[in-house]
């Protein structure tokens, strides 16, 4: 079994209307329940907007604290789910369900093996 990170990429701009968002949250809850009962769910969560982020970096032996995010972009990480799957095909099945529920681009990325 491998761990896979399913990242939700959100475009910068106005969020969807409340009723649309409501439906998305319901679908997500449903999917998370499905993942738990299938025994693949490890962790999931939605993130606050990137302008709430703070960046720390080592600079000449001192930690510098600045207003975030680290990288400005047209899309940002909106949330993520970590799952446990036998192989990429199994992970992609869950990724597809997530892409249908959200409905935003999903990046499926394996965790590095720790043997």
């Amino acid at each position: 079994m491998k761990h896979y990170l399913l990242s939700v990429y959100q475009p910068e701009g106005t969020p969807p209307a409340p009723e649309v968002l409501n439906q998305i949250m319901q679908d997500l809850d449903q999917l998370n329940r499905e993942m738990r009962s299938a025994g693949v769910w490890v962790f999931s969560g939605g993130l606050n907007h990137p302008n709430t982020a703070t960046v720390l970096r080592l600079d000449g032996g001192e930690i510098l604290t600045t207003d975030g995010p680290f990288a400005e972009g047209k899309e940002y990480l909106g949330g993520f789910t970590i799952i446990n799957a036998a192989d990429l095909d199994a992970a992609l099945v869950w990724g597809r369900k997530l892409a249908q529920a959200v409905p935003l681009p999903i990046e499926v990325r394996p965790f590095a093996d720790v043997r």
Partner: protein
Amino acid sequence: MRDLPASEITRIFRAEYGRAVAVLVRVLGDIDLAEEAVQDAFTAAVERWPAAGLPPSPAGWIITTARNRAIDRLRREASRDDRHAQAALLHTSSAPIEGEGVVPDDRLRLIFTCCHPALSISAQVALTLRLLGGLSTAEIAHAFLVPEPTMAQRLVRAKGKIRDAGIPYRVPSEAELPDRLHAVLAVVYLIFNEGYAASSGDHLVREDLSAEAIRLGRLLTELMPDEPEVRGLLALMLLVDSRRAARTSPDGALVLLADQDRAQWDDELIEEGRAIVRDCLRRDQPGPYQIQAAINAVHSEGRPTDWVQIKQLYDQLLGMAPSPIVALHRAVAVAEVDGPMTALALVDELDLGQHHVFHAVRADLLRRLGRDAEAAAAYEAAIDRAGNASERDFLRRRRAALSI
């Protein structure tokens, strides 16, 4: 004793490469280890075969030798506390080995791994040619006009992704099969087309790639005999390839289908292709490759060409796989049946300005309508966009033949 030159050993390894690598990937659980093992077996064959003679089953000999060499190598490395080797060794001892170790599904598994949609198309093509076709990295690099280190890196990255992302070594489930099979056929057809009408470079045809695609098509037909689209693709490639010799003049220039010397067509390939098309018709599960094969089967019949039937087939294709490119080809048939004016109206609706073929078709229709100035402009647009020197020369000659 029969003389066994090194070139003959190389030829045998090339022919058996896909089979051997496919078995060893299953046994060893790793593509790089499998390739190394087959390379080791090749070295052993060069030492042994000239003196001992060709073994009764070269494929079996290669697989057994490769497996034994790989296990020896892994044992050496595992004893040096190499955890990667230990894991591979564990995998090896648990993998079933039947007889010579050949399971019919192995090559099929390998094809689906190589053509996994999580890999870029260029990586899918390179992996398929390398692992199933047994082409060297240098040969693939040459065929696609990229420097060898670039191609080597592409292969290393693709194999790394298969390993690290956990792309499985398995024939997809029934539910996934149609989509995944489509991806495999697309890769084979892309290899064929690159060989048939090289998208760049000085030569119109790269026969080695077309031949390799047909070999892969035959292999797929053997491995999946009940998939009509697999047969359709093979028939399509055979019928198109049957006209290869007639498609270029001795000086390498492009010759249009209507102007080709039919005596140069390969009757054997045509008959084989037509027989498959007839078989597909009996099975009656049409698909885009089968219809394109049927269109080419009509083209391979005697003159005059039955354009009405070709137009009907394009109607069917457009309904099944709508795309502007199909619509453009359909318009060519419409021009023959309903005249160039009707066809031009259809072509002008298509958003294909980036494609040289679009401009070439427009130019020809305008020429036939006597609108030479517009035709000249369309030829210029086609010449600017054609990446292949033979096609550019052809378009220049057509442009020059206009009265302006």
